[in-house]
C-alpha cells in the first residue's frame, strides 16, 4: 500500500490527476456548503444531471473534445434547467419537487438521446463522451487541471468577496433584502458559483454523481461545527481528502470508475459524521440514555430519603420492592441502586434492604433543597 502511495505521488501523471481531484474537492466542498445551507441540495442534483445535453451539444457543434466549449455547454444547460424549474413553479401550481423531477429526467433523457445520436456519427472521435457519465480521472491532463484550477479559483474568489452577503442569503434573506442587498442577484450569483463547481467536476466525478460531491462534504462538516467559516473549511477538507482517496482507489484497482469511488469515500465520511458527531444520531441517543439514568438515580435517592423522613431518619432502610412500587413500569430500580452503591450514596443492608449513606443524605440535600418541608 505504501509502495503504491509512493509510486502514485512520484509519477507526474498521477500527481497531475491527484492535484485535479484535490482542487475539485476544495471548490465543491466550499460551494456545496451554500447548496446545503440553503436547502437546495437537490437542485445540485438536477443541475448536474441537466448538464449532459449541454456537453453533448457542445461536442456536436465544435466537433472536438475541447474542454472549454464543453464546460460552457454544460453550464448553460444546467442554468437553463434551473430557469425552467423557476418558470414552471412560478407560473403554475406545480410544486418545486415535481418541477425538479421533470427537469432532471427530461434534460438527462435529452442528453442520452443526443449521446446515442452522436455515437452513431461516422467520425470515431466521439468515444470518451461516456466518461462524463461516471467520470474518468485517468483522462485528466495538465490542461484540464489548469482549467479546473482557474475556474475553481474564480468560484472561490466570488465566495470570498461576497462572504457576508452569501451568509445573509443563507440565513436571513428577508433581513438581507431590507438591508438593501439584492437577494435576487445574490441568488443568481450563488447558482452561478454552484454551476461552475459542477462543471469542473464533470470529468472527474461525472454528471450522475456530481451532486453528491457538493452535498456530502457540507453535510459532514455541518455536523461538527456551527460556524460558517469553519464549516466551509472543513467541508473543503473533507471533499479534497475524499477526492484524492477516490481517485487513488480508482487508479489503483482495475474496473473501478472514479466517480462512484469518490462518492463512496465522501459518503462514508458524511455517514460517520451524522452518526457520531457531537450532534449525531448515536451521540444524542447516548446522551439521552445517560440523562435518563441520572434522573432515575435521583428519583431513587429522593424516594429513599422521603420514605426515611416518615421514620424521622433519612438513613432508614427500605426494601427494593417498596421503592419499585411508586415508580413507572419497566423501571429497573435495582440497576439504579447498584449504580448509587458504586457511587457510595446508598448501602445494602441485609436482603433487598437499602439505606442512604452519609454522603447520600448530603447528595439528596443538594438535589432538592426546596422540598425539605414537603
Amino acid at each position, binding site marked *: 500500500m505504501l509502495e503504491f502511495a509512493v509510486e502514485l505521488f512520484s509519477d507526474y501523471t498521477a500527481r497531475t490527476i491527484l492535484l485535479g481531484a484535490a482542487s475539485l474537492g476544495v471548490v465543491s466542498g466550499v460551494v456545496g456548503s451554500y447548496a446545503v445551507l440553503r436547502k437546495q441540495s437537490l437542485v445540485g442534483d438536477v443541475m448536474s444531471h441537466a448538464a449532459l445535453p449541454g456537453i453533448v451539444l457542445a461536442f456536436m457543434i465544435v466537433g472536438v473534445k475541447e474542454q472549454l466549449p464543453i464546460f460552457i455547454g454544460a453550464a448553460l444547460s444546467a442554468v437553463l434547467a434551473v430557469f425552467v424549474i423557476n418558470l414552471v413553479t412560478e407560473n403554475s401550481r406545480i410544486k418545486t419537487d415535481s418541477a425538479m423531477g421533470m427537469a432532471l*429526467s427530461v434534460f438527462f433523457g435529452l442528453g442520452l438521446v443526443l449521446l446515442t445520436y452522436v455515437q452513431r456519427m461516422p467520425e470515431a472521435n466521439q468515444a470518451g463522451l461516456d466518461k462524463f457519465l461516471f467520470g474518468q480521472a485517468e483522462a485528466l491532463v495538465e490542461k484540464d487541471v489548469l482549467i479546473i484550477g482557474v475556474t475553481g479559483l474564480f468560484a472561490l474568489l466570488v465566495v470570498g468577496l461576497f462572504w457576508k452577503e452569501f451568509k445573509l442569503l443563507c440565513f436571513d434573506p428577508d433581513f438581507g433584502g431590507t438591508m438593501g442587498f439584492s437577494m435576487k442577484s445574490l441568488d443568481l450569483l450563488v447558482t452561478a458559483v454552484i454551476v461552475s463547481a459542477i462543471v469542473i467536476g464533470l470529468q472527474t466525478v461525472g454528471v450522475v454523481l456530481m451532486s453528491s460531491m457538493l452535498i456530502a462534504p457540507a453535510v459532514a462538516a455541518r455536523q461538527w461545527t456551527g460556524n460558517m467559516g469553519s464549516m466551509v473549511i472543513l467541508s473543503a477538507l473533507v471533499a479534497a481528502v475524499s477526492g484524492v482517496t477516490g481517485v487513488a482507489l480508482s487508479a489503483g484497482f482495475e474496473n473501478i470508475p472514479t466517480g462512484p469511488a469518490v462518492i463512496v469515500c465522501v459518503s462514508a465520511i458524511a455517514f460517520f459524521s451524522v452518526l457520531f458527531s457531537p450532534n449525531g*444520531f448515536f451521540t444524542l441517543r447516548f446522551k439521552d440514555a445517560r440523562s435518563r439514568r441520572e434522573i432515575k438515580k435521583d428519583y431513587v435517592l429522593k424516594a429513599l430519603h422521603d420514605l426515611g423522613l416518615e421514620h424521622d431518619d433519612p438513613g432508614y432502610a427500605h426494601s427494593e420492592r417498596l421503592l419499585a412500587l411508586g415508580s413507572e413500569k419497566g423501571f429497573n430500580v435495582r440497576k439504579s441502586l447498584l449504580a448509587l452503591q458504586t457511587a457510595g450514596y446508598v448501602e445494602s443492608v441485609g436482603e433487598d434492604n437499602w439505606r442512604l449513606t452519609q454522603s447520600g443524605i448530603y447528595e439528596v440535600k443538594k438535589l432538592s433543597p426546596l422540598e425539605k418541608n414537603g
Partner: protein
Amino acid sequence: MSPHQFDIQLVAIIVAASCAIPGAFLVLRRMSMMTDAISHSILLGIILAFFLVGDLSSPFLIIGAAASGVLAISLIEAVNRARLVKKDASIGIVFPFLFSVAVILLSKYARNVHIDTHSVLLGEIAFAPFNRLILSGMDLGPTSAYVMGSILLLNLLFISFFYKELKVSTFDESFASSIGFRPRLIHYLLMAVVSLTCVGAFDAVGSILVIALIVIPPCCAYLLTDSLFRMILLSVVFGISAAVSGFWVANWLDVNIAGSMAFVCGVFFLAVFLLAPQRGFFGIMREKRRQRMDFAEASLLVSLYNQERGEAVKNHPDSRGMFRSADFASKVVEFLKQKGEIAVAGGKLFLTEKGRERVRTTVEGR
C-alpha cells in the same frame, strides 16, 4: 409495424401505465424527488439479486430488489432524524452512496451478468422482445410484458383497495390519523409500490429515466383536472401516449428509446403547461387580463355612479384620470360603450341604465 416493434410498444405501454398510477400520488404528496432516491437505490438490490441468481425473472428477486428501495427510504428518514441534516440533504447523501456502491460492484464484477453501466442509464427496452415466455412450446409473448403486467395489476389493486385511505392521507394527514387510518403505513406501502414499479421498469428504461414516467404524466394531468380519479386516469393516458410516441421518435432518429420517451414526456408537459385551459400559462395570463379589465370597468362605472349622486371627489372631474395611461382609459371606455353601459356626450361620460344596474349588482351586492 413489425411484430418486434409491436412487442416493444406493448412493454412500453404497460411500463408507462404502471409508473403513472403511483406517480399521481407522489406528485400530490410533494414527494417527486423520492422517486429519484428510490430509482437510484434499487440498483443495489437489483445487482445483488443478479449476483445471487443471475437474472431477475424470479418474483422473489424482484421483491427483494424492491425492498432495497424501501430500505433506502427508511435510511433517508433515519438520517433525517439527526438534528442537523435537512430533508433534502438526507435524500441527497443516501441515494448517491447506494448508487455508487452498485455501480462499483457492476463495473468490477459484472463480467458474467448481462447488465452494465450503460443499460443502467439507457434501459434496454429494445431487447425486451428477445426474452420470450414459452410454455409447452407455445410462444406467449415477451416475458417482461408478463412481469410488468403483474406489477401493473398489483398497482391497480393497491389503489383500488386503498383508494380512500390514500386520498385522505394525501390531502389531510392529521385528519387521516384521527379517523383511524394509518398514514405512516400508507406512506410505506406507497413507497413499496413505487420501488416495485421502479424495479420492474428498470429493464425497460433504466434507473434514471423512470423518473420521467413517474413524475411527468401526473404533472400534466394535475394542470388539467381537480379530481383525483380523473387525474390518475389522465396520467395513465399521458404516460401511454408519451411512451408510444417516444418509441416512434426514437425509431425515426435511431436513438435511445428510454431517453426519447423522457424527452417526449417533457414536450407533452410543455404543451400542457402552455395551453391548459385554466391552469396553463396562457390561460392564467388571459384570466389575469380579464380580471384586470373587469376591475377597471367596475372602477370606472362606480366612479361615474358616485358623480351622479354628487359624491365624486372634486379632484377627479373626469373619471378617466384614474387609469395609468390614456390608452388604457380609452380602451376601457370603448369596451363599456360596446356593452352599452356608458354613453359619451360632448366628451363627457354618462352611465346608462344598464351601467347603473351593473354597479348595483356587482358593487353594492344588490
